[in-house]
């Protein structure tokens, strides 16, 4: 492998931060802003409904999050309710299930990240090197499909496949193994959760890497072939460097969302018997907040969760920027 090759692919210009890309303001527009607004008044009407939507359904709840520091009662309203400071947070930290919830949430999302992050990359690299192009198309069509299955149907499939006389236990029986009560066993909650994600999302998540791989200049590969590089070497030294920037962005995004692990699936996969490992912060917030109507306490737990997320995201973005020179902002 010539060192020149990897160097060439490394020296690709680093793209601008993904979220602010293309919204720099040309300096000439800084003056005459009033003229611009007058000229484009219709565009403000275009934006108005969306702006109102964000103010009502995103920024009003942010204002309302202060109920985490109050004893909210619907009759008194947000600002009328008594201010209690950090009382609800302290109650949560001191509650008997605080560490269980933290452990369940973190271990589930870390496991999910460790397994679901690398797999699509491997699949994309393999598909990209597949020599039969029509077969490649066929595989792609099939492995994208589960993405469109709803979470209810997905968990429904888990229930029928892993029930006591379902497909999996029938399969175990062929090998003379004892049947396992997967859905009632707390130890099996995480494997079921992560495994069903792998089945559903691996193909879909590979699309973005495949697109990046399709953009690799074929001359790089041709030059490498002339130099006698094997396929495996080319994957290692051409394909992987080509998708590195997008890998970093997606990694930052997923680490920043680590505490946002989906409520929807965890809640559906919960059975009374696996709660010791399936109760995570979002399901707890739902139960305490909406089923028991302890609004303030649940808001405090939710805010705590959101803050951890925000700090993680900021921190990971900083690390990514230092290492690779690019981040989300």
């Amino acid at each position, binding site marked *: 492998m010539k060192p020149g090759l990897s160097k060439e692919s490394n020296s690709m210009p680093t793209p601008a931060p993904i979220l602010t890309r293309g919204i720099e303001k040309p300096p000439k527009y800084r003056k005459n*802003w009033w003229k611009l607004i007058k000229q484009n008044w219709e565009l403000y009407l275009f934006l108005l409904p969306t*702006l109102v939507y964000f103010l009502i359904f*995103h920024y009003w709840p942010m204002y309302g999050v202060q*109920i985490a520091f109050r004893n909210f009662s619907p009759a008194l309203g947000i600002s009328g309710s008594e201010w209690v400071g950090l009382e609800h947070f302290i109650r949560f930290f001191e509650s008997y299930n605080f560490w269980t919830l933290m452990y369940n949430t973190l271990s589930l999302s870390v496991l999910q990240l460790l397994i679901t992050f690398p797999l699509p990359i491997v*699949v994309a690299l393999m*598909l990209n090197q597949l020599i039969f192009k029509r077969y490649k198309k066929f595989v792609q069509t099939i492995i994208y499909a589960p993405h469109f299955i709803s*979470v209810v149907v997905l968990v429904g499939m888990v229930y*029928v496949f892993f029930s006591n006389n379902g497909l999996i236990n029938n399969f175990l029986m062929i090998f003379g193994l004892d049947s396992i009560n997967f859905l009632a066993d707390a130890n099996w909650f995480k494997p079921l959760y992560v495994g069903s994600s792998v089945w559903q999302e691996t193909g879909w998540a590979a699309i973005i890497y495949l697109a990046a791989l399709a953009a690799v200049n074929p001359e790089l590969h041709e030059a490498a072939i002339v130099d006698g590089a094997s396929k495996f070497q080319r994957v290692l030294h051409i394909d992987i460097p080509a998708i590195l920037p997008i890998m970093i962005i997606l990694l930052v995004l997923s680490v920043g969302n680590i505490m946002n692990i989906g409520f929807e699936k965890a809640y*559906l996969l919960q059975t009374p018997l696996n709660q010791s490992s399936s109760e995570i912060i979002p399901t707890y917030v739902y139960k305490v907040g909406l089923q028991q109507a302890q609004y303030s306490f649940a808001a405090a737990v939710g805010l705590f969760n959101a803050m951890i997320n925000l700090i993680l995201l900021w921190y990971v973005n900083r690390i990514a920027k230092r290492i690779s020179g690019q981040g989300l902002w």
Partner: protein
Amino acid sequence: MDLSSINRSKQDKIFDFFNIALLTLLLIAVMYPLYFVIIASISNPDRIFAGDVWLFPRDITFEGYIRIFQDGKIWTGYKNTIIYTTLGTALNIALTLTAAYALSRKDFYGRTFFMVMFVFTMFFSGGLIPTYLVVKDLGMVNTMWALIIPKAVAVWNIIVARTFFQATIPNEMHEAAKVDGCSNTKFFLKIVLPLSKPIIAVMVLFYAVSHWNSYFDALIYLNDESLYPLQMVLRNILIQNEAAATMVGDLDSFAAQQRIAELIKYGVIIVGSLPLLIVYPFIQKYFVQGVMIGGIKG
């Protein structure tokens, strides 16, 4: 020139062999569960329990489907979901396209401010409880609006559509139209929209699928069963085992009920995913385009 097929070294042949073998395994792993649900839904449940059903349906029966189609709840769910999906998607498209177009214009004063304001909500939100209280204060709880209006726009789709507009509608085009006395609204309706059919298709699909598949908002905002969307009905059958009980109530023994309930579960998985399964092969490429516009050019 495809050099790779001309002189493949022995090493590359091994690579290709394992590559094809592993991808075929992956293909089977993804496909088989879907296939099994189909054959199980028309097999005798006793044969499923006994582990006789692997590759082909056994003792074909349509009793599961017959009971599903006789059940009113599924139809109500279907009807509700179609209404929510249609109205919701129409609202989504109207807001997303107008906002994204405004934000795509370089001469739109304040675009950075608005963009940052919208993107910020991707990373921080008030959370479940404060959002619920807002919807409740607006009097939307237990109405269909709770499933539509709080989901009026998705930030990510604004980013995708804006990127598309920036790439396909050059500034010069608008400048020229302006010289000819064309207003912004007219330009948007007559020029931008007709040029944006691909992105509109992508947006319709993204939004429609997310409406079709969502159950969470119905879970927290609706109490009235007659308003339940399909996914809530499916949840009750598949996970709570509830509705299935009403569908097999005429059967005498518990064992017979269990048998048919299992069959019904396989059947509703198919019935619930049918519309998507049918259209998926035709629309797949639009979804892929959408992901690529958002990811690469974004």
